[in-house]
C-alpha cells in the first residue's frame, strides 16, 4: 500500500484511468500495449510482452496499430477489488536493480577532470488501485516497459545483480530522445584519484533516484559520482532535486531506497576482474 502523498503527476499516458464496465480501454506506454477493463467488481488487465528492443529504435510508427482488444494469445489478469473500484492508476517508477551500461564511446577521465553524462532509463510500469474509502492505493502489478537482460556487477564470487541497459550514456541530451517510458538521469562523474579513469562501463543505482516531471518529460535527480581510486568504490550522492534542465520539475515518485548521506559503491568497470567466459576454462 502506498501513500497518496506521492502525487501521480506523470504526463499521459501515465496517470489515472476510469474504466467503464465491460468496455475495454486500450493504451500504449512506450512499446507496451495495455488493455484495461472493469467487470463484476473486478479489474481486468492484459498486456503485450515487453519487446527486446534497442531503445534507440523505439518509434511508435514501427510498433503497428494499437488494437482495441488484446490478441487471443494474451491472457487477462484479474483482481477482485475490495470496494468495487473502477479506476486504475498507471505510475512510473525506476527499476529495482542497478543498471549497467556503456558510454556512447568509451572515454578516459583524466585525474582531476569531471564529465556530465545523460542516461535514459526504461521505467517500470506500476499498476495501482486507488481505494475508494481510503486515501491510498494498492499495488496490483509492476512491469518493465522494455525487456532487459540480467547482468552481474562485481566479480564471480561477490557482486550484485543488475539490468543490462541496451542504450548508452550520452554526453548531450536532445529533446527528441525523450519518450514516455524513459526517464533521463544526469550523472556528474568526477575523478579525484591520481590516475586516469577509463569509463567503459557504468553502474547507475537508480533505486536511490527520485522521478520528476518537467512538461512531458521525465527526469531523475542528478547524481554525483566521485572516484577516488579506492578499491571500495566511488562516493555517490543524489541531489534529491530536479536537474537544471528540468529545474521546475515536480516530484512524481520518490526513491525506492532513501539515502540521506550518500553511499559508496562500485560504479566503474575498472574495479572488476571479469574476462569473457569468466576468466577460465
Amino acid at each position, binding site marked *: 500500500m502506498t501513500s497518496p502523498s506521492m502525487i501521480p503527476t506523470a504526463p499521459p499516458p501515465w496517470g489515472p484511468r476510469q474504466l467503464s464496465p465491460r468496455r475495454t480501454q486500450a493504451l500504449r506506454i512506450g512499446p507496451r500495449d495495455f488493455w484495461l477493463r472493469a467487470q463484476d467488481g473486478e479489474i481486468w488487465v492484459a498486456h503485450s510482452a515487453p519487446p*527486446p528492443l534497442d531503445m534507440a529504435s523505439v518509434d511508435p510508427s514501427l510498433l503497428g496499430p494499437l488494437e482495441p482488444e488484446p490478441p487471443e494469445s494474451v491472457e487477462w489478469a484479474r483482481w477482485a477489488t475490495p470496494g468495487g473500484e473502477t479506476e486504475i492508476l498507471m505510475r512510473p517508477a525506476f527499476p529495482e536493480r542497478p543498471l*549497467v551500461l556503456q558510454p556512447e564511446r568509451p572515454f578516459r577521465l583524466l585525474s582531476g577532470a569531471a564529465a556530465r553524462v545523460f542516461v535514459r532509463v526504461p521505467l517500470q510500469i506500476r499498476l495501482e488501485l486507488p481505494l475508494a474509502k481510503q486515501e491510498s492505493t494498492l499495488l496490483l502489478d509492476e512491469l518493465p516497459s522494455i*525487456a*532487459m*537482460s*540480467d*547482468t*552481474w*556487477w562485481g566479480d*564471480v*564470487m*561477490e*557482486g550484485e*545483480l543488475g539490468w*543490462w541497459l541496451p542504450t548508452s550514456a550520452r554526453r548531450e541530451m536532445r529533446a527528441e530522445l525523450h519518450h514516455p517510458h524513459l526517464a533521463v538521469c544526469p550523472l556528474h562523474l568526477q575523478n579525484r584519484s591520481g590516475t586516469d579513469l577509463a569509463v567503459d*562501463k557504468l553502474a547507475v543505482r537508480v533505486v536511490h533516484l527520485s522521478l520528476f516531471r518537467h512538461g512531458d518529460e521525465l527526469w531523475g535527480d542528478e547524481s554525483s559520482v566521485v572516484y577516488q581510486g579506492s578499491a571500495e568504490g566511488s562516493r555517490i550522492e543524489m541531489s534529491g532535486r530536479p536537474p537544471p534542465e528540468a529545474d521546475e520539475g515536480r516530484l512524481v515518485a520518490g526513491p525506492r531506497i532513501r539515502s540521506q548521506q550518500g553511499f559508496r559503491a562500485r560504479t566503474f568497470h575498472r574495479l*572488476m576482474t*571479469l*574476462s*569473457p*567466459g*569468466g*576468466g577460465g*576454462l
Partner: protein
Amino acid sequence: MDTGLLVWVAQAPLDPQDPVTSFWRQLAGGEDPGALLRALLLVFIGVPALMAISRWLRQWVGKSYSPQQGMVAGKAILYPGLLLIFISALHQLGFSLAPLLGAAGIVGIAIGFASQTSVSNVISGFFLIAERPFEVEDVIQVGDTTGRVLSIDTLSVKLRTFDNRFVRIPNETIVKSQVTTITRFPIRRLDLNVGVAYGEEVSKVRKVLLEVTRTNPRALMEPEPAVFFDNYGDSALELRLAVWATRENFIQLKNSLLEQIKARFDEEGIEIPFPHRSLYAGSSTDPFPVQIVGDGGPVDATLPEQEDDGRPAEGETHPDEPGGFVPSEGEDSSSGSPGEEEERPH
C-alpha cells in the same frame, strides 16, 4: 511381564540402608514431600519454555542473519538449557552432583567406547558447524546425492533431494567425502557443448551462438558469454558455449538456451550432425549397391550411371542372380569386403 516379580517387589521389606531403596526414596522427595513437585514443575514447565525460546531464537536469528546461524543459536540455547534443567531437577530432589558427575565420567567413557561411530559423528558435526563448508538452505552434492540442506544436526546432515526424498548423511561421511556446495557463489557458468557439421563456418556459428545468448534474458551479459572451439570431433566440430547465470536461473537458462540454439540453427541452416557411419563394398569409391529384391523394381537411384555394355557394373547385382554380387575388377569375390566399415567425419 513377570507378575510374580512385581508381587515380590511390592511385598519386600524396605531397608533404609539399601542404596536402591535410598535412591527411590530420594527420587520421591526424601524428607521434603514438595521436592518431587518442584522437580516435576521444573521439567514440565522448563523444558517446553526452553524449547519455545530456542525455536523463537532460531527463527529470529535465521531471519536476521542466516538460517545456519539461526540453527546454531537455537541449539546453543537448547542443549545447555536441557542440561541445566536436568541438574536443577536432581538438585531439587536432594541428589549430590559431585558423585553424579564422577559416575557420569565413568559412564561416559564406557558409552564412548561402545559408540565410537556416534561420537565421531558428533565431533564431525562440530567441525561442520565451525568450518562451514555449507549452510542450511545450500544445495550440496555428496557422492551421487544432490539436495538442499534442511539441517546440520548432532549426528547427521539432512537433505531434501529435488525429487523430494529425505536423505540423512552421517556427519562423519560428510567430513570424509568430497562435498560440492553448488549454491556457494551467486553466479554459475553454464557450459553447453555444441557440435556442428564440418562444412559449417565456425565464425558464423560463433556469431549465432552469441546472438542467441544476447536474446535470452536469463543469460548474464557480464561476465560476457564466450564460445570456445574445443576439438575436431569424430563427426562434428566441437564448440563450447560458456554463459553465466544467477544460481536461481541456472536450470531455466539451460532449458531455454538449448531450445533457442536448436531453433536458431534450423533457421540459419546450420547442421547439428549425429555420428555417421558409411558402409563401403568393393571399390572404396563406389557406393554400396542396393536393389529391391523380388518385384524387379529399379535399382536404387543412388547408383552411379554407367554405360550399358551388357554386363553388370562393378558391385552391381547380376541380373540372373537376384541378390548376387559381382566383384570389382581385380577383386576376388571371396576376399571382397562387403560390409567393411569406415567412419568418416561428415
